[in-house]
């Protein structure tokens, strides 16, 4: 079986221009995250910030997920590389998300039980 050479392997990778555009987009998303924090809880928080407070955490997590996906797909080349690499990376991330969610639910019940004097 013929194996791809280093040059064949890198053939599908993005160009420096694409990398730069993604970098700029990542920077804008980070500025949005901090801006969202400032208008919701910062010194400049106003009525609008109060209104969006219930959506603050989901919005922040969504922005974070987009940044994570962009770095993984384009900078880590998962979009172009073998799907085996994606599987080796994504499967533990799913387990990690389940661990985080399960522990939060479990501990929430635990603290609620403890607070009720149980």
């Amino acid at each position, binding site marked *: *079986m013929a*194996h*791809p050479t*280093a*040059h064949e392997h*890198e053939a599908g*990778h993005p*160009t*420096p221009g694409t*990398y*730069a555009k*993604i*970098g700029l987009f*990542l*920077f804008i998303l*980070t500025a949005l*995250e*901090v801006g*969202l*924090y400032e208008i919701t*809880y910062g010194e400049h928080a106003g009525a609008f910030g109060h209104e969006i407070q219930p959506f*603050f*955490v989901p919005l*922040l*997590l969504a*922005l*974070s997920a987009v*940044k*994570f996906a962009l*770095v*993984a797909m384009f*900078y*880590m080349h998962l979009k172009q590389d*073998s799907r*085996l*690499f994606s599987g*080796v*990376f994504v*499967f*533990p*991330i799913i*387990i*990690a*998300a389940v*661990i*985080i969610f399960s*522990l*939060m639910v479990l*501990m*929430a019940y635990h*603290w609620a039980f403890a607070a009720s004097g149980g």
Partner: protein
Amino acid sequence: MSDHAPALETSTGLDSRKLAIWTFIGSECLFFATLISNYLVHKQQWLTGPGPFPHEVWTDPATGKVLEPIIEIPLVTVGTALLLFSSLFIVLALYGAQKGRRGMLLGWLGATILCGLFFVGMQVYEFTHFVHKGLTLQRNMFGASFFVLTGFHGTHVTIGVIWLITMFILALRKQLPSTRSLNLEIAALYWHFVDVVWVVIFPVVYLIK
């Protein structure tokens, strides 16, 4: 020494070193998941202990002393932006390595190392500042889970910086030709992972109250 990377036959047709770093990164996801879980499950509990706390003003009931929120978002935002830019810089360095453009490789790799050093410096300053403000590993639940989570991340960044400096020295000595660019690609994958972990830690620890 030959400039050509050895052609390894594998059953998957993929380079074993690249598969190994991806497997390692997968295991690291689980490692950081436990640390993030630890931080999150104690998030609602830390207010029962003595301050200072990340976003909350806390008054010591014994002395009446008021402790201000401890986190400095502007400084960490700069560190976060530089870590993100370092991911851009290292893909440009890798592009230079793959195309045999030594100047591009050295320039962007040097910029990546500088960003990494700034981030580590930022974290050292932050930790020192927190200790001076009274927040230590033993002080409260926030201190314990915060220092463990961000400390382990900082350790990973430090290891990444050392790895990249090694790559930089190899490139300076002309021992990183385009045929060996996979060596830099593996280091870059680790560096990107360190970046994406921070992409999660930054909002979870610093922005979400």
